[in-house]
């Protein structure tokens, strides 16, 4: 049998606008109070189990295969296992995002029955005090680490992930080692977003220019390639959000991505299919495919290093057509990190 990866299929579905990859935020409520978190709870009812079942049916009919269940904290929903049951019956690849603090031995064992392809837990430091300072809940480090062990014991694939910020910059190598010790994969990112209501408090955790360079030097490959990637603007895709991926908020709003608040519609008002194919906002967004379609970015010399995020740009600059100061800053820091690393390699 031939085989493909999820990424291969995502590329194949991009052109056809099949919502291959969906993320559903089941709730914005959380038992942690992370200093950099973007979630804001709203005074609207969460999608009910029936509404989620109908949504999953509609997504499956349109060809969605990859499903991420996220929060807030998903285990705060009393019907979470019922949602998993429905997702399993509709044959989705399931991925779960959680902080892990509510996962007991029994819950890990129940979760294993649904064979999620990955369970991703947020762990911000290898040092308990630093992690708990970030989550603002004492004891959360121990609980998350214990959850990783329970999940591993039940044969689940676990990923620990973290945002690199001021409070945990020096923890990065220790966290990488901790992941190795725990026998799990790890992933990290440097992007910090404003909160959903526009509050910029989380941005206080952003690394300075110097710290960013130092972070990229630590991250190395694949985030930082040895040589600058030279790519023509028409060869560089902008973002798959809204083409083959989508996000649904706890209140039924359909967006291209979690924090990309270009609202396509709400599943309480229209079918997902109508929203996905007929929304004016979706159609307009989909006219942009590569950097060549972006007047402000098409002549930039560092697009090979740019992880241009239209969600972040919309939030900070007002329009996804803008350049995005934070993405530009990150791209420049990558270029600088590469220069410094190359300098070090030269013989004295």
């Amino acid at each position, binding site marked *: *049998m*031939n*085989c*493909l*990866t*999820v990424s*291969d*299929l995502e590329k194949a*579905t991009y052109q*056809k606008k*099949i919502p*291959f990859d969906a993320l559903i935020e089941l709730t914005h409520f959380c038992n942690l109070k992370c200093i950099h978190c973007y979630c804001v709870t709203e005074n609207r009812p969460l999608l009910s189990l029936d509404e989620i079942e109908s949504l999953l049916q509609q997504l*499956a009919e349109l*060809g*969605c*295969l990859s499903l991420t269940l996220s929060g807030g904290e998903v285990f705060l929903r009393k019907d979470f296992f019922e949602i998993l049951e429905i997702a*399993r019956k509709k*044959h*989705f*690849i*399931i991925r779960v995002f959680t902080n892990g603090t509510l996962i007991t031995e029994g819950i890990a064992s129940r979760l294993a029955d*649904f*064979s*999620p*392809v990955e369970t991703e837990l947020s762990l911000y430091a290898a040092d308990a005090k630093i992690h708990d300072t970030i989550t603002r809940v004492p004891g959360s480090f121990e609980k998350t680490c214990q959850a990783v062990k329970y999940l591993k014991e039940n044969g689940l694939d676990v990923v620990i992930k973290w945002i690199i910020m001021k409070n945990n910059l020096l923890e990065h190598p220790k966290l990488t080692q901790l992941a190795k010790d725990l026998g799990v994969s790890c992933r990290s990112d440097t992007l910090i977003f404003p909160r959903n209501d526009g509050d910029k408090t989380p941005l206080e955790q952003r690394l300075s220019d110097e710290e960013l360079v130092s972070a990229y030097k630590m991250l190395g490959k694949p985030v930082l390639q040895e040589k600058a990637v030279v790519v023509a603007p028409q060869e560089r895709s902008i973002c798959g959000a809204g083409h083959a991926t989508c996000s649904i908020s706890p209140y039924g709003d359909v967006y291209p991505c979690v924090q990309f608040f270009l609202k396509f519609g709400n599943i309480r008002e229209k079918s997902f299919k109508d929203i996905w194919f007929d929304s004016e906002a979706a159609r307009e967004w989909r006219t942009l495919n590569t950097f060549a379609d972006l007047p402000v970015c098409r002549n930039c010399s560092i697009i090979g290093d740019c992880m241009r995020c239209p969600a972040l740009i919309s939030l900070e600059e007002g329009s996804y057509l803008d350049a995005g100061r934070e993405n530009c800053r990150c791209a420049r820091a990558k270029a600088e990190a590469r220069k410094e690393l190359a300098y070090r390699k030269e013989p004295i």
Partner: protein
Amino acid sequence: MDDKSFTRNNNVAFRTIEGTTFLASPYSKKIYPLNSVGNFIWNNLEKTINFRDLLSNICNEFDVEKSVAESDLSEFLEELQKERLIK
């Protein structure tokens, strides 16, 4: 082999997109596209079915010699089992 029964592993994700069925293994994270015969077999595996009945269904559905179908089916089921897509 004739009496050996097979059925889908319930934890395997799959979806038919524009006529092609894709099986996704939660264990290897690989995705397997099926051709029309593979798709037919996969549909037959929704309920437990033995090799003999499965072979008979294939011969009724497709213009194929029984010996060829038997060999191909045997190989296909072996691959599905190896990838834990069926049990």
